């Protein structure tokens, strides 16, 4: 059957991830210079994953998970800010996003509501003259911020794609990602360590 095989392969890849990380843990991570030694495998999200959860029925052919050796990016923080005109919609969306994060095993740092912003306009009511009669409009923008900490690139991609596909109409989103990187090899030592220090730089 295709289903258990695919899952077994996924489990094996996860096992490879764990082995790699314990090795890194013992070496103290300082030995590896650059991304290449971080043997965190990256899984590629296929394009048609949406078909697999359509109904509750057992799937006959699950989407295949491709595992590459390319090192995964590490995000120290992913901050999702949603903006909308209706507070109730944002409440429901926050419930959905936090529940999805918990189900996928992502740690939630903070979930808070920045203060709303109201833009007010005062316009003339009539097309021509009648300056004393004006009408006032206001546009309220409500915000909700969900901060997630310590995700890998694959997890972030999966979570963000899921969140963004289910973004309701009339709601905008800004995602700030802070990726962590090692100091690159060319910055570890200065170029002119072995050369005389007093060079004329004209």
């Amino acid at each position: 059957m295709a289903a258990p095989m695919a899952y077994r392969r996924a489990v094996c890849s996860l096992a490879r991830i764990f082995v790699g990380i314990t090795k890194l843990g013992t070496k103290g991570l300082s030995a590896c210079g650059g991304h290449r030694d971080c043997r965190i495998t990256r899984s590629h999200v296929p394009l048609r994953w949406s078909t697999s959860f359509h109904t509750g029925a057992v799937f006959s052919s699950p989407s295949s998970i491709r595992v590459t050796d390319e090192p995964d990016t590490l995000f120290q923080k992913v901050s999702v800010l949603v903006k909308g005109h209706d507070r109730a919609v944002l409440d429901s969306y926050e419930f959905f996003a936090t529940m999805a994060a918990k189900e996928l095993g992502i740690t939630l740092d903070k979930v808070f509501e920045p203060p709303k912003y109201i833009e007010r306009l005062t316009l003339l009511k009539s097309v021509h003259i009648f300056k004393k009669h004006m009408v006032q409009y206001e546009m309220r923008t409500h915000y909700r911020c969900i901060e997630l900490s310590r995700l890998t690139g694959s997890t972030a991609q999966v979570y963000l794609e899921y969140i963004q596909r289910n973004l309701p109409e009339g709601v905008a989103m800004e995602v700030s990602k802070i990726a962590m990187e090692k100091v690159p090899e060319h910055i570890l030592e200065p170029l002119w360590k072995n050369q005389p220090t007093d060079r004329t730089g004209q």
Partner: protein
Amino acid sequence: MAARSGKALVSLGRLNGCGLGLHTSLSRATYATALTTTTTGNKVFPERGNRGGFARKPRRPPGDPRTEKMAVDQDWSAVYPAAAAFRPGSVPLPVRMGYPVNRGVPPEKRGNLELIKIPNFLHLTPAAIKKHCKALKPFCTEWPTALDSNAKCDEFFPIKVKTTDYVSASNSIRNPAARIVNLQVKLSSLNLDDHAQKKILKLVGDRYCKDTDTLTLTTDSCPLRKQNYDYAMYLLTVVYHESWKTEAWEADITRADMDEYIWEDSPSQKNILDTLVRMKAAAEGEEEAMEEEVLGRPEVQEYKDSVSRLKNEGENESSLLQYREAVKKVLQL
């Protein structure tokens, strides 16, 4: 299958009526599995509108809404598998929405435009979310357990690159602010000696924050994010290597331009030496004390420390006290 296609056509009709983007529900319809919803058996799809007028068959009255036939333990994700408008005949809840006119009650759900307008989350019930996440879980990777605190992350991965993505509905999906890349690094994690440390601060200017020891480089001059990221790394490399270089003209620095006060060869040293030599000459007669011997005395060293501290740190309680004590000891008061 007829019932299923009938349902798809109904939703198509709703599309024309309300103008909502429900193309996803159509595409979902084509992947329907064996789980068909139970509708009233072999109902012929009713005529839409009275085009011919009186020659056509009269329109049949609509049957019971689907809510009457729903089981309590049904699979709700089959009723609302994807985002769709509110259908009062498919949602078995006595929902009311709207302004209560004439001190009445909010209007019922049948024919209620407010309920159709507002986005609903009927397709994202907790059960559905769990199902989706279960299917998505194999694509996620674990965070390395060795990096469990922020301090460890900063120690091994000191460079932080911040990028922002924007999602909104408008004529275009592009947002020019998405190209901005912000690179932050703590100077303590870079390999810099004293001279390099001072020079990098001069090269970088405002982009360095002394309180958090962070250098921030923000690049937005290129049109693509990848280009801005490459440019930021290039800037970091250049600034780092340039700070290690010592130019020939750096030796021409004058006393006034120096960052720190150096006590050697300063007026303060000359004064104290003069005073001490004259004091010794007056006390012991003709004996001329050697300068090095005078300088080597611990009181003179203390005096040197206190003066340097006053000049470098500024005047505060503790430095003034230290200066007072040092002067008293040197002049043997």
